[in-house]
């Protein structure tokens, strides 16, 4: 299951990345997909199915129904809550598709405050290879987003089973579904959550280059992925582990930074008077505080439950210090980004904080449940 989920994630990223070099034709995409299937998919280990997994599968079906509702992709009806798809991710995918490649001219000339040309390309390119195969249909973005979520659920299912036993693992995986399959269908959240959470979880116990590659894809999906690689590297050092598995992540992230610099696309966080903004936001923190108090979580009740789970396991969380360190550093990077923000800080926090928290939810949930399992009374958990 872990192997299958990993192969799906790597294949999705590799096919999208191949569009940077191969012709934008159906045959080229089919060939790349065939190569990915041939090289990446091996026989997975036996899956110990539990009837609770059927509920997870059924809910995934409901999500796909939701994510492919025709009206959901009608910009006029859903614009206020789905702006990021229509004006950033979907618009860019369609622009690239019309251009039969990455439209560097557009990226170099569109103003950052509206079009965010510094946002990575992997998600629009993922939408594009589905469009090359099946024609332009935004609903495919909903389907492919669900595939990302399913890959993540396959990975967490087996990793939970290693820690909790089969029934608890099935329940824990079920509880991840709202995060793995977010309401923001078509945004880059689903692929980013799949890449980032999988990368962190796969590195939790083992030094896997596949995890490094997946973290590299996270950096090519959203800019938070760049900070995540740094957070993971620091956490690995702090827990006394080798940085070697991160080389694919460093290579991909480095390539992205070089390409972005070569094209002259600065990220708006580092444009203009960065130090001046930092000083102002630290000196007058009221705007930042106003943003945090005014922001809404995507899944508030789930985060309350997660906080309770972390509290219950708090004595044993040190056993999961790698993931706790990664999460803590990511939060610190988020706050640092807000301090450097060239936008209205309160508005920036309100519009993004809820989604950013979701990126860390599954690693934190895993840490809470695995640490709780590791406590003295763990043996009495029903399997």
């Amino acid at each position, binding site marked *: 299951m872990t192997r299958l989920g990993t192969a799906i994630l790597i294949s999705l990223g590799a096919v999208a990345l191949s569009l940077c070099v191969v012709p934008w034709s159906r045959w080229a995409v089919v060939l790349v997909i065939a190569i990915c299937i041939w090289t990446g998919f091996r026989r997975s280990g036996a899956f110990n199915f539990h009837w609770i997994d059927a*509920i*997870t599968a059924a*809910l995934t079906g*409901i*999500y796909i*129904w*939701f994510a492919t509702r025709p*009206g*959901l992709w*009608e*910009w*006029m*009806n*859903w*614009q*206020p*809550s789905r*702006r990021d798809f*229509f*004006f950033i991710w979907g*618009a860019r995918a*369609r*622009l690239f598709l*019309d*251009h039969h490649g990455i*439209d560097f*001219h*557009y990226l170099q*000339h*569109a*103003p950052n405050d*509206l079009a965010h040309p510094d946002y990575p390309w992997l998600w629009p390119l993922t939408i594009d290879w589905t469009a090359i195969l099946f024609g332009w249909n935004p609903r495919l973005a909903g389907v492919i987003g669900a595939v990302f979520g399913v890959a993540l659920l396959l990975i967490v299912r087996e990793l939970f089973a290693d820690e909790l036993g089969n029934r*608890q693992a099935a*329940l*824990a995986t*079920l*509880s*991840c*579904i*709202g*995060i793995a*399959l977010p*309401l923001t269908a078509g945004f880059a959240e689903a692929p980013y959550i799949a890449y980032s959470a999988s990368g962190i979880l796969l590195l939790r116990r083992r030094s896997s280059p596949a995890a490094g590659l997946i973290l590299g894809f996270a950096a090519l999906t959203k800019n938070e992925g760049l900070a995540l690689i740094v957070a993971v590297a620091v956490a690995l050092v702090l827990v006394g582990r080798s940085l070697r598995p991160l080389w694919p992540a460093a290579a991909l992230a480095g390539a992205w930074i070089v390409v972005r610099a070569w094209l002259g696309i600065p990220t708006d966080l580092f444009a203009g008077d960065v130090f001046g903004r930092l000083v102002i936001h630290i000196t007058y923190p009221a705007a930042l505080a106003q943003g945090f108090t005014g922001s809404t979580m995507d*899944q508030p*009740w*789930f985060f*309350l*439950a*997660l906080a*309770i*789970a972390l509290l*219950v396991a708090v004595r044993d969380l040190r056993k999961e210090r790698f993931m706790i360190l990664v999460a803590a550093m990511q939060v610190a990077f988020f706050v640092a980004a807000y301090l450097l923000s060239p936008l209205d800080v309160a508005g920036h926090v309100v519009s993004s904080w809820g989604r950013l928290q979701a990126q860390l939810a599954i690693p934190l*949930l895993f840490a809470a*449940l695995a640490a*709780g399992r590791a*406590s003295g*009374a763990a043996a*009495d*958990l*029903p399997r």
Partner: protein
Amino acid sequence: MNVMRGLVMALLVLTGAAIPAAEWLTAKPAIDREHAALRDFIVALGPLTHPGERIALIVPVEDRDQDTLGYRARYLLPGRIIVLDARGADAVAYWRVPPPPGGHRQAVAEGTLVR
């Protein structure tokens, strides 16, 4: 402790699976009726353009935010809309995109196509 962990797991399943599933089933759009006419106008522009041709859309300077007509137009007709902000006689290219060879046609938001 076992009971506590069972309760936590039940809470996690309720909030992490049941509530999101209810949201998927009940999600409703926030209809943006004020822009319905605008959408129709932009869609109507589609057949007027030829593949590879670009049209320029003039929007007032004060509309330069995420909700502008031009920004929406880019989703509907990507690569075929250039948004200009009209600052008097010399409209400044909003996206700083130079006109394609042979110049471009201009359209104004009210629906008049200006060649």
